[in-house]
């Protein structure tokens, strides 16, 4: 097993408040990881640290890129994305004025392979690259079952489809590791089942490592191979779904101290 992401002593303070403190974590290539914890436990802050939205107060985040370890903590989000880390957002952030297809195309821009001059002069490079981008984008949309809706405005999609479009868009950034922030939020049980199958399929097809934050325990227990539990910004447990289900710290974190 190859180590892909290593987090050492990661902390983030907002003023005097420690939203995340002293987290250590190792994630191997190809794993499906769940990140759980009560509301306000620091899960999204942790994601934001890893994806560059926030700068860590302390600690290291190392990503293995082309066999070499690289410190990514504090880099700008677009840099981190170009090193192979893509994400979705808990509060859906699709591009409102764009169609479904354009949303996906946008994420491929770093692989467009042509510059602004080719774009202005419409060289053959531009036409070839645009054709490739279109084909590829359609492929990603087919994966999440949105190909037929490609020309609709992204914001006109129903909620569950918007979540899947976020996944397609993140996929189009061609990541090695994918972060999904509450991908099943607002979905009905049938949609959640489909999502579970989809995530597993994408992991296998694109050789992805996937980390997801989720409140739907059946999805997490069913899908994830390893689970990390955060509470009050600290990592309180980690292990397989069975281990987590029987961990007393986790149970007390969720149900309150007196249990």
């Amino acid at each position, binding site marked *: 097993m190859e180590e892909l992401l290593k987090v050492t002593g990661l902390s983030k303070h907002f003023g005097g408040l420690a939203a995340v403190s002293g987290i250590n974590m190792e994630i191997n290539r190809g794993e499906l990881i769940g990140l759980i914890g009560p509301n306000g436990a620091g899960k*999204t802050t942790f994601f*934001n640290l890893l994806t560059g*939205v926030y700068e860590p107060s302390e600690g290291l985040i190392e990503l293995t890129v082309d066999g070499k370890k690289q410190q990514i903590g504090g880099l700008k989000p677009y840099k981190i994305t170009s090193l192979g880390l893509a994400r979705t*957002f808990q509060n859906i952030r699709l591009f409102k004025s764009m169609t479904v297809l354009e949303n996906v195309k946008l994420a491929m821009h770093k692989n467009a392979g042509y510059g602004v001059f080719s774009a202005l002069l419409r060289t053959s490079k531009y036409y070839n690259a645009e054709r490739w981008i279109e084909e590829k984008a359609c492929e990603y949309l087919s994966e999440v079952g949105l190909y037929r809706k490609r020309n609709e405005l992204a914001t006109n999609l129903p909620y569950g489809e918007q979540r899947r479009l976020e996944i397609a868009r993140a996929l189009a950034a061609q990541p090695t590791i994918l972060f999904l922030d509450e991908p099943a939020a607002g979905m009905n049980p049938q949609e959640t089942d489909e999502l579970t199958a989809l995530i597993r399929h994408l992991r296998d097809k694109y050789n992805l490592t996937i980390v997801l934050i989720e409140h739907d325990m059946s999805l997490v227990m069913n899908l994830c191979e390893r689970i990390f539990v955060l509470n009050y910004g600290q990592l309180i447990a980690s292990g397989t779904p069975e281990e987590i289900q029987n961990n007393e710290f986790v149970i007390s974190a969720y149900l309150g101290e007196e249990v």
Partner: protein
Amino acid sequence: MEQFLQQLINGLSLGSIYALVALGYTMVYGIIKLINFAHGDVYMIGAYTAFFVTTYLGMGFLPALLVCMIVCGILGVLIERIAYKPLRKAPRITALITAIGVSYVIEYTTQFFMGTTTRTYPAILPTTTWQLGPVSISYIQMVIFSVTIVLMILLTLIVQKTKIGRAMRAVSADENAAKLMGISVDNTISFTFLIGSALAGAAGMLVGLYYNAATPLMGMVPGLKAFVAAVFGGIGSIPGALVGGLFIGIAETLVVAYGSSLYRDAIVYAILILVLIIKPTGLFGKNEREKV
């Protein structure tokens, strides 16, 4: 040195006027996040109102000042109710374009009726000048200082001690929470415009008397400068507006005295850009962050 002190006095009087205008910008921006482009024009209306009541009604200084403040305060509330209120939920750029539109309407309506001629004032203040050692202070400069200080104290009392002042602070901190606490957000915003515009009206009268001139477009540049002062002090901060106003006034006066009067406006914009680059929140500003 003597000349420097003299320029400092001149700078402080100009700065006091900027400070009064800057207060309106800072309060309005603090509460609805809008650069009220028309604020400089409210100041212009203040200067014209003073011209009318002193020339045609023969009012003395204090009654005229009061009338200016009332007229401009009402104008500010009207502007808010008619042009900005429908846009409270709109993107900031939409509101900003509206503000530019309002500014055009006020400027050119005034020009339409008053023409471009410069209006001058009757002598309602003595032309006495006091000699304080090496520097001289004119009567009007003393008036500017006193009015500014009195209005600043009044404003601080209103904001800190009264119910409506608390409401203003609550709405600017969190509009929705304020609403849930039973504060009428609409009335609070209107009140903010009332106070800010009244201060601009006072400033307009003072500047009209100081330079003995009122023109329809006189509010544009000082309006922008006062905004720069507000940014310099930290937008949303009342002491910031005072410090920023004085600083801009002094800087501008010194550039005219020791550099070239041609660059008097350029220095203000240069200060603005430097502040925005180095510390966009200004001297007393607070940081805000978008939630992801």
